[in-house]
């Protein structure tokens, strides 16, 4: 059957990764009808959701798992794939198991996680630091120290795109790395506004403030353009999730040689386990439903996982696949995963609405130097206090 699959993976590495899915699915005799929506999740989600609501759902769609789909599930618009999960033994193979939890509502499974993305990375350009005549930093503080040298060499210390989610993500990374895991959990999972207003987070906001000034001259829009600044050595570093890896790969750069990846800003080696998942909106055609389930199973099959995640630069959702082909950074990530240093993603704890508010705040903060760290923190605490 023909399945229309919507997603917003349109950058070079992403598109190559999707092609792996499509290839594998087409090989089963079905047809993958690609419905890429450019922009970002922000552009794509309204379209995806309005189509599901409007009674014209696609057969499968990317969504960040987590709370985004809750209401759709409650409204009975998404296909229950518990049977597939049981047949394929996802319970045992999916690692970390929190990924599957995020797909579960009232004991039923509604989505197929396909990868693990963690935000907690900083990408550093060897060329930039060489040009500036300083060593490649090993953690955030060293990086801050290298700032002047970078600027003197005409480099942008920190590359930063203008898309709202980037600012938000970078802040999240700093929060985990600087405030520490406990404080982060207290704020994000338990929605404790006091902690959010407390000294741990104050340090986070101060760090963000200095990051802001380092990114001042970064005038690019998209995340991958920012990554490109790092690749070409125009910028010193970028805080960006592991998907940036794909861009380095497309540019044929070698980890450790051309660039360095620092998990947790080098301070706190821990990864959050956000990721992408596929949902399967209900259709009334049994043939399609069968194909949907086939696709769900396929997405988590070991070979597809490997092929996809290598291209995408993300980590597979199965602990049992062999990623020998993976490069330096990926291996690092796998190690951290294996050691169990994982956090749930913010997507899973905060509603999109709250995330949207935080995102708005961060965007404003990152772009408006007149907002002080203290102001921003106060507003942040307010949002956490109101979060549901």
């Amino acid at each position: 059957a023909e399945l229309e699959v919507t997603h917003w993976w349109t950058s070079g590495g992403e598109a190559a990764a999707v092609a792996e899915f499509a290839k594998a699915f087409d090989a089963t005799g079905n047809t993958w009808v690609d419905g890429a929506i450019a922009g970002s999740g922000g552009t794509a989600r309204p379209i995806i959701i309005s189509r599901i609501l409007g009674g014209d759902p696609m057969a499968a769609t990317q969504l960040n798992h987590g709370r985004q789909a809750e209401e759709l599930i409650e409204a009975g618009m998404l296909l229950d794939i518990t049977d597939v999960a049981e047949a394929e033994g996802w319970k045992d193979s999916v690692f970390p198991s929190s990924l599957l939890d995020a797909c579960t509502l009232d004991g039923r499974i509604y989505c197929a996680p396909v990868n693990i993305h963690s935000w907690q990375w900083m990408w550093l350009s060897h060329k930039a630091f060489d040009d500036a005549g300083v060593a490649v930093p090993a953690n955030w503080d060293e990086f801050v120290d290298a700032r002047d040298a970078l600027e003197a060499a005409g480099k942008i210390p920190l590359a930063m795109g203008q898309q709202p989610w980037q600012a938000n993500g970078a802040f999240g990374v700093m929060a985990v790395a600087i405030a520490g895991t406990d404080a982060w959990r207290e704020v994000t999972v338990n929605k404790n506004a006091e902690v959010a207003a407390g000294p741990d987070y104050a340090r986070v906001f101060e760090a963000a403030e200095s990051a802001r000034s380092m990114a001042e001259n970064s005038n690019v829009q998209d995340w991958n353009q920012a990554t490109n600044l790092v690749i070409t050595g125009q910028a010193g570093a970028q805080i960006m999730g592991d998907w940036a890896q794909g861009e380095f790969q497309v540019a044929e750069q070698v980890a450790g040689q051309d660039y360095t990846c620092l998990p947790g800003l080098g301070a706190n080696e821990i990864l959050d386990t956000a990721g992408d998942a596929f949902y399967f909106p209900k259709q009334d055609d049994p043939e399609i439903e069968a194909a949907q389930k086939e696709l769900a199973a396929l997405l988590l099959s070991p070979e597809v996982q490997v092929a996809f995640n290598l291209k995408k630069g993300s980590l597979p959702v199965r602990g049992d696949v062999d990623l020998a082909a993976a490069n330096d950074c990926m291996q690092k990530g796998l190690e951290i995963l294996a050691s169990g240093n994982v956090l749930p993603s913010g997507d899973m704890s905060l509603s999109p609405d709250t995330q949207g508010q935080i995102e708005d705040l961060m965007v404003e903060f990152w772009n408006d130097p007149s907002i002080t760290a203290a102001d921003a923190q106060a507003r942040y605490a307010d949002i956490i206090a109101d979060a549901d």
Partner: protein
Amino acid sequence: MTAKIASIPMVFTAVVVFIGCTLWTVYHSFTGSRLLPAPDKWVGLDQYERLWGTSRWLISVENLAIYGFCSMILSLVIGFTLAALLDRKIRFENTIRTIILYPFALSFIVTGLAWQWILNPSLGLQNVVREAGWTSFTFDPLNNPDIVIFGILIAGIWQGSGFIMVVMLAGLRGIDEDIWKASRVEGIPAWKTYIFIIIPMMKPVFVTALVLIASGIIKVYDLVVAQTSGGPGIASEVPAKYVIEKMFQSQNLGQGFAASTMMLVSVLIVLIPWAYLEFGGKKRD
């Protein structure tokens, strides 16, 4: 009878779509709808309270106000000035009019992209001027949160002022030729005639133009999406974008509805006095 049957699409559109949908939206703005409309989650004015406490909304409104005010004034001034110039029996009138109007045939997406490119500081206008020797020249509205809205304004004016010019030109052409003759016989200079006689006579045309501009302003969306995506930061956000994002991305329909209701209210504020002038006035004389 046939007339009534033939008017069913119109009546349907007017009643079901325009009134029905509007009321639906207004009603749901008082609910806590999230991803799906939840007519039974009544929350009163909560959404509005939050709306007016959100800095992004406030910035959006402020942007729209600045954009709206400037684009009204500029469109009217530019539109009228150009129309007046073209009305001076100049040569190549058709060519020039065509040049001024063609952007109107282009979409906001195209407009936004073209101007994004020209205003790109490292490649566009600023770069060109700098390379020409004026190295301190700075013109990067799209990257400066303080003036980004004017960068959008430049593009908006570019796209829409030709249309206003045509409206004005039609208005000017509609002025009795004899008025011009009378003022010439009295020795009144052209500029004085424009200011004291022609412009006051064109009041209805100005009002029409104003309504046209205003109705376009409130809908500004594509342009911002294509040109800046609301950036840098949230410096160029506009209400329409806020609505769409709250509704679909943040999955907070109630908030989006509240914001769109506010947009509707502002339209009504513009429209009702106009309708009153236009239709109420007619009945009286």
